């Protein structure tokens, strides 16, 4: 939440996007996180993605819970509204926001504690509702802000800084989302911006709940030896299953691929994600197979990353509710109030 106003010097000749905005226009306040915190890299990736997508900052809304991760919305999109909810309850705020204004670009930023401990119930039910939002979990295996206790994503056998060992099985947000019918399930690593930016872009364009579980090391409490969420460990064990390119609407697919190597998926606004499969025995459009694959690789000690599953055809919250196209918060009162005659009619029943 803390944030120090940052001097906004616009260098001449700084690249401008279709809206004539520079990347500076997508930044926020100065980060107050620890130097080297993975969360800051994710912030940078979000800024990059918005800039490249030519999105007007004020059409976006940032929601988060409580935690170091949940502070980061103060560090990007300074011209967007933000909402720091209470701990673990951001998904319900996002649900209401989406219900009221279906045209918002909703970005949720949470932590593994915020989403998998206190917030597990709300997270799971947001997935079920296929809420139209991008939901990023900045996953470091600990509670950073309260100084390093294990979170529910801590792996068995991982050691805390003080030496304590975790012996409870972890909750994997990715498997959870797949099991709950999530329509866009991805995993990234804060140390791999090349992979992360297109994932964020695709997630923003996806209609429905887009989860990106981003491994984001906590340099202060969980980046040591014997931690399975450290930079070193993650670098060593993460493996990209699908490489994702994002192609905006109307833009031709330039790079050419060998037959069958690439799966193009069209999104609702006409943009496409190109999924280049690294291992051929993997199909990112088959939920069950995706789950099986992730579990198999996990047994082999690997953390699978990339856009692991995408399904564009499920109805989102409004599809399920058959809500009118016009955002509810924009409907004129006249179209909501039945009026005095209707009231008289209704009351016949009560006489």
């Amino acid at each position, binding site marked *: *939440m*803390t*944030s120090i106003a940052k001097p906004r010097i616009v260098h001449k000749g700084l690249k401008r996007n279709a809206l004539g905005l520079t990347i500076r226009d997508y930044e926020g306040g100065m980060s107050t996180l620890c130097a080297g915190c993975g969360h800051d890299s994710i912030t940078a990736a979000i800024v990059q993605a918005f800039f490249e997508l030519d999105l007007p*900052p*004020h*059409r976006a*809304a940032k*929601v988060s819970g409580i935690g170091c991760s949940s502070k980061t*919305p*103060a560090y990007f999109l*300074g*011209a*967007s*509204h*933000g*909402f*720091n*909810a*209470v701990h673990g*309850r951001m*998904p*319900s*705020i*996002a*649900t*209401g*926001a*989406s*219900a*009221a*204004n279906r045209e*918002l670009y909703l970005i949720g930023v949470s932590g593994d504690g915020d989403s998998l401990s206190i917030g597990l*119930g*709300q997270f*799971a*039910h947001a997935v079920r*509702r296929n809420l139209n939002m991008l939901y990023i979990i900045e996953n470091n295996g600990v509670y950073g802000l309260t100084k390093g206790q294990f979170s529910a994503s801590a792996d068995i056998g991982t050691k805390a800084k003080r030496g304590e060992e975790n012996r409870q099985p972890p909750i994997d947000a990715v498997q959870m989302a797949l099991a709950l019918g999530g329509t866009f399930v991805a995993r990234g690593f804060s140390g791999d911006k090349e992979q992360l930016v297109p994932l964020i872009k695709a997630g923003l364009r996806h209609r429905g709940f887009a989860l990106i579980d981003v491994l984001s090391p906590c340099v202060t409490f969980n980046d040591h030896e014997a931690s399975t969420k450290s930079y070193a460990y993650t670098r060593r064990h993460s493996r990209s299953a699908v490489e994702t390119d994002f192609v905006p609407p109307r833009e031709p697919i330039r790079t050419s691929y060998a037959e069958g190597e690439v799966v193009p998926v069209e999104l609702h606004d006409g943009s496409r994600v190109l999924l280049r499969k690294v291992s051929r025995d993997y199909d990112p459009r088959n939920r069950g197979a995706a789950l099986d694959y992730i579990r198999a690789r996990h047994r082999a000690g690997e953390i699978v990353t990339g856009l692991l599953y995408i399904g564009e055809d499920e109805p989102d*919250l*409004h599809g399920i*509710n*058959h*809500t*009118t*196209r016009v955002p*509810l*918060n924009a*409907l004129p*009162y006249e*179209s*909501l*109030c*039945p*009026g*005095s005659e*209707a*009231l008289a009619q*209704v*009351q016949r029943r*009560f*006489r």
Partner: protein
Amino acid sequence: MSQDRVNDFVVKFANVNGTGSASANSLLMKAIFRMGVPVSGKNFFPSNIQGLPTWYEIRVSEAGHLARSGRVDVMVAMNSQTYLQDLHEVSPGGTLLYDSTWPRDRMLARDDITVLGVPLARMCNEHFKSARTRVLMKNMAYVGALVALLDLDDEVVTALIREVFARKPSAIDANLEAVELGFRYAKEHFECPLPTRVERRDLTAGKIMIDGNTATALGCVYAGATVGAWYPITPSTSVMDAFKSFCERFRKDPETGERRYCVIQAEDELAAIGIVLGATWNGARAFTPTSGPGISLMSEFLGFAYFAELPAVVVDVQRVGPSTGMPTRTQQADLLAAAYASHGDTKHVLLFPANPRECFELAVAAFDLADRLQTPVILMSDLDLGMNDWMTDELEWDDAYRPDRGKVLDAAELESAQSFHRYLDKDGDGIAYRTYPGVHPKGAYFVRGSGHNKYGGYTENAREYQEVVDRLLRKWQTAAGLVPKAVIREHPQSAGVGIVAVGSSDPAVAEAVDALAERGIHVDYCRIRAFPFGPEVERFLAAHDRIFVVEQNRDAQLKALLTLETSCPKERLTSVLHYGGLPIDSRTVVEALLNAIQEGVTA
């Protein structure tokens, strides 16, 4: 021994739940209402779906007294499990009706009442085929008997049956026949009508019979609420059921079937209030109906909304606490929990409807106040008001009404504005200007429950923090001037004695005031409709040196709020408490006052 009680008696039904008695009983009540005589019905049902004892009490009162009276003139004893207890409840001179299909234990008798047996089961078994019908029709058969005994207008009853079963005409004949069976039996075997009977009047014109939850739902529709979030809980569930069905009727596009509303069944109450806040943050009107346990679960978010200043409308249909308590019994025991919900220094606006018409009106007011004050407003209803059918004035609507959305800056205003600071008190009323997401870059700010300064920035600075929470107190002052005024009924010869009450205690208090007047004791009555208390409440309290606070809880919670939030010396306040879970009756109030006043004299 039994004296005439024309249009002034109580009929009580003892049934087994899940046997369809409810519809029969309310049909009977409706019939009396249509004969122009004021009635009210109270349902005492178990927290269970099928097979347990359930009671229904109809009070007929030409004088328009619709609280529970404490007496039972006619008991329809259909439940052998509770027969003994039901028998004892009948007031001397009263009548008991039972199913004489099976011989009745001779021990179960009383010589100060009239006991009438009708072979309901036998008649229905002989007359109807299917088992289910036989069970259901027993109820209509006793209705028939009562039509004769209470001298009801059979045309009214017939018309009602046709209406009720309009959707499945097949049922109409069966029901009419059942009524006829009971009617004929009564006519042949008993001297009809009884001294307790109904005579046509014209006292229900301009009135309707409706439950508070349905009226509340209508209020939400008319206020323009578009987002409803909830987690089912008795006795609030019917608020959302009604809201949905009204929206299906009025807010659905005939061609596309698209909805101009969104109701979300949340995973729990913490999520329900969160959904409401997410929606109001974005400028939609949103609400959540719940009951006590929900208020406890929502308290963290309520404190957040108070501090971050987001509107929200919460409907608390109170039931008996603490904890799960008695989910199907009534109480007014969430006042303190709601008024000061959440840790830290917090205060919340409460509204107290006293009848279905006010449920409708105050629901609309709740949305206007929430938007104007940018804070949660809790509509304090209860099970008695919310789930029972009350006779109330027709609902009226002024088509000129437009919602008060409070201080919101639109794109144009933001465009031309120098700058925007979320928590600046420009107008000195403690209310700052707000903006909605997606409208204009200049309007961007952070909603947060953590420390913030008047510009909306995060702070850990004592002075900046204090500036903000002190302004919230100014806003609270403003609120006291905006909330609905108390309804005050003063008597020229009043002896400086006053009664204060809220919500569903009203009929009992009103009747008590009349009863006391008959005894020559004139008391004034102030029915509070909102917290914080307006100046008129202060005035009333100042003008009376003996004030009785009537409420339906154990710990005198309304008295506590009056003690803390008005300048009235607490020594002037005397509690009249009723908290067993049945709606308060007028006797309780009358006796309490008489005793207290006695003491006053003897002391």
